[in-house]
């Protein structure tokens, strides 16, 4: 695939950071434009008119939206020599990977958001969200099993879909009152391994403390405290 590659992102966005990881994984040169989600740029609004969300990948002026759709697009389109595939070749293995990536979006993200987005004092809601978040993390941990990565021996599609949520664990922990290391030690170890063994991951993720500060700022802005 030819053309200039631009990524519209917000540094804490787990969805946007999936795309960062994938582009670096493939060795694709790109320019990142930071979006202020409280004041969206005309470029964001015109390239993602349906959702007005990040990430948006713009290749040669043409936008692609929705992070998992973008991951598959990157896999389909940037297969230069030496760039490993994100998804495996076997159809069943691909279906398996797609299932679990979708699980991260529908189960983990949804529950995690409820943990940090509940208004102050909504203890029952936070408790329910904590239970659901831990349950989702445990299910993911069970799927990981004894493998070093969800993709097997190396980083793959599901790893890229999930690891950008790792910097959010601290936020879930502080608002939810639990620790990932205690509840899901193998998953915590996996997250560390992803960063330690893959520069594309290490270079793509924000500090957990920065995510927490960002969320605190958001909570104030939305009057949740």
């Amino acid at each position: 695939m030819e053309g200039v590659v631009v990524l519209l992102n917000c540094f804490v966005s787990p969805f946007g950071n999936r795309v960062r990881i994938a582009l670096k994984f493939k060795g694709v040169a790109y320019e990142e434009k930071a979006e202020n989600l409280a004041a969206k740029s005309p470029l964001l609004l015109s390239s993602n008119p349906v959702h007005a969300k990040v990430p948006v990948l713009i290749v040669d002026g043409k936008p692609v939206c929705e992070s998992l759709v973008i991951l598959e697009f990157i896999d389909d389109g940037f297969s230069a020599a030496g760039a490993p595939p994100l998804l495996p070749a076997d159809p069943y293995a691909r279906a398996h990977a797609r299932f679990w990536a979708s699980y991260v979006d529908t189960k983990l993200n949804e529950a995690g958001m409820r943990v940090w987005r509940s208004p102050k004092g909504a203890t029952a809601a936070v408790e329910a969200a904590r239970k659901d978040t831990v349950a989702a993390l445990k299910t993911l941990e069970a799927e990981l099993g004894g493998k070093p990565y969800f993709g097997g021996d190396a980083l793959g599609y599901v790893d890229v879909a999930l690891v950008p949520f790792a910097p959010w664990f601290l936020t879930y922990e502080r608002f939810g009152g639990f620790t990932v290391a205690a509840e899901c030690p193998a998953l915590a170890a996996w997250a560390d391994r992803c960063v330690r063994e893959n520069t594309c991951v290490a270079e793509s993720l924000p500090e957990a403390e920065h995510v927490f500060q960002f969320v605190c700022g958001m909570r104030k802005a939305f009057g949740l405290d």
Partner: protein
Amino acid sequence: MSPPVKLIGSFFDSPFVHRAEAALRLKGVPYELIQEDMENKSELLLQHNPIHKKVPVLVHGDHAVCESLVIVEYVDEAFDGPPLLPSDPADRAAARFWAQLMDTKCRRPLVLSFLTEGELREGFLRETKENLALLEAQLDGKRFFGGDSVGYLDIALSALSRWTAVFEEMTGVSLVGGDDFPGLRRWAEEYTSNEAVRQCLPSMEHLKAQFSAKKDKVKSVAMGHGDAAAGAVIR
């Protein structure tokens, strides 16, 4: 020689199960349909979809594939036959984007347009018409979203055909069948007339009977839990 294919579906004539059947029929893959009683889930379903316990589930030899759109892509990749997804990466991304939109943004207000009344209904109708306008623009006068033949996105949007027509007839609300979206109206006729698709489309009468029987339950679920519920609505 490929192992046999079973599809676990439901008595409900779910549009999610239809997606899987349409993909199999369009690819020319023979399969056995197993009707699941969703009020009384079988060991087979719980074994093959322990995470979500929902239909459809495709069982192909040792492999179980869950989630309707994942199944459609699996069928496209695992079997020979006319391709369901386009080959160009940007076109594939567009097809996946719009298919996802159906499930995350369009489905709930569409269903609730028919199940609510008064001001609530007006709100859901407005939202639905905005979504349909986007799809009408995406169709852009083509015969199918896939071009000249039925493809992945047509299959993903199939609930806009027979199921929406049934709702429209039962409630008198006009959406795809009206004059506002001539491209979509023509598309729905083309889709439901397709030789392969027709064989796995529930009849209007059957769907009407199903929805009449379940209307209250379907509505309370759709109102209560947002997108997850709208997904459960037509199971």
